[in-house]
């Protein structure tokens, strides 16, 4: 991983069209601003991972018919 030092209000440019800026630092929290094209998705990593995991589970041999039976028999 590339590690660079930046101060508040300083930026990084990734590729030609992504800018990542340090907006504010307070204690252990850092506010980051990102300018990127609309087709680039930006996620908090832990949420990205959790949703990916959930999607993988969801496609994994669930049985819709048993769920429907369950509802009908309620």
């Amino acid at each position, binding site marked *: 991983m590339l590690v660079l030092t930046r101060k508040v209000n300083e930026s990084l440019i990734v590729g030609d069209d992504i800018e990542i800026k340090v907006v504010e630092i307070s204690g252990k929290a850092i506010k980051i601003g990102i300018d990127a094209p609309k087709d680039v998705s930006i996620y908090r990593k832990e949420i990205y991972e959790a949703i990916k995991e959930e*999607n993988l*589970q969801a496609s994994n041999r669930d049985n819709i018919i048993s769920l*429907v039976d369950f509802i009908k028999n309620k």
Partner: protein
Amino acid sequence: MNGKLLKNGGEIMSKHVVETPKLGKIEYTDDDIIYMVSPLLGFDHINDYLLISSPETVPFVMLQSIDDMDISFILADINLFFKDYSPNFSKRELKVLQVKKVEELKLFGIVVIKDKPQNATINLKAPIAINLEKRLAKQIILDDDRWEIKTPLFKSEKVK
């Protein structure tokens, strides 16, 4: 889904038939395809899906990949189960889905059944928003802690 021949720019759209593992044969045309404007997380490079409902599966629908028949999801119309579900989408998301307001989108949640159906959960943190008219869809990850990834699907019914 009733596939029908539609004229589009003078060309007759051809019918396709797929054999789905769970719901048997489905006939569709190119106009029936739902295009995922960015792939579902974990399913890169899969953009074309069919949204299939059948009497056996009501109130659920199947989101079936066309490219890979082994990939399908159970979806539920979120507002049928959670009347007060009203997430905010950013302008950016609305633009990508080519609508002006959230109300123009149909919101589905991905359902996961881990063991017993009564323990099924629905993902309200990352709904699949679909512009049914333009056939565009996207899983939108909400920056909102009111909604959770594993929300019990039947909790709301126990209350009554």
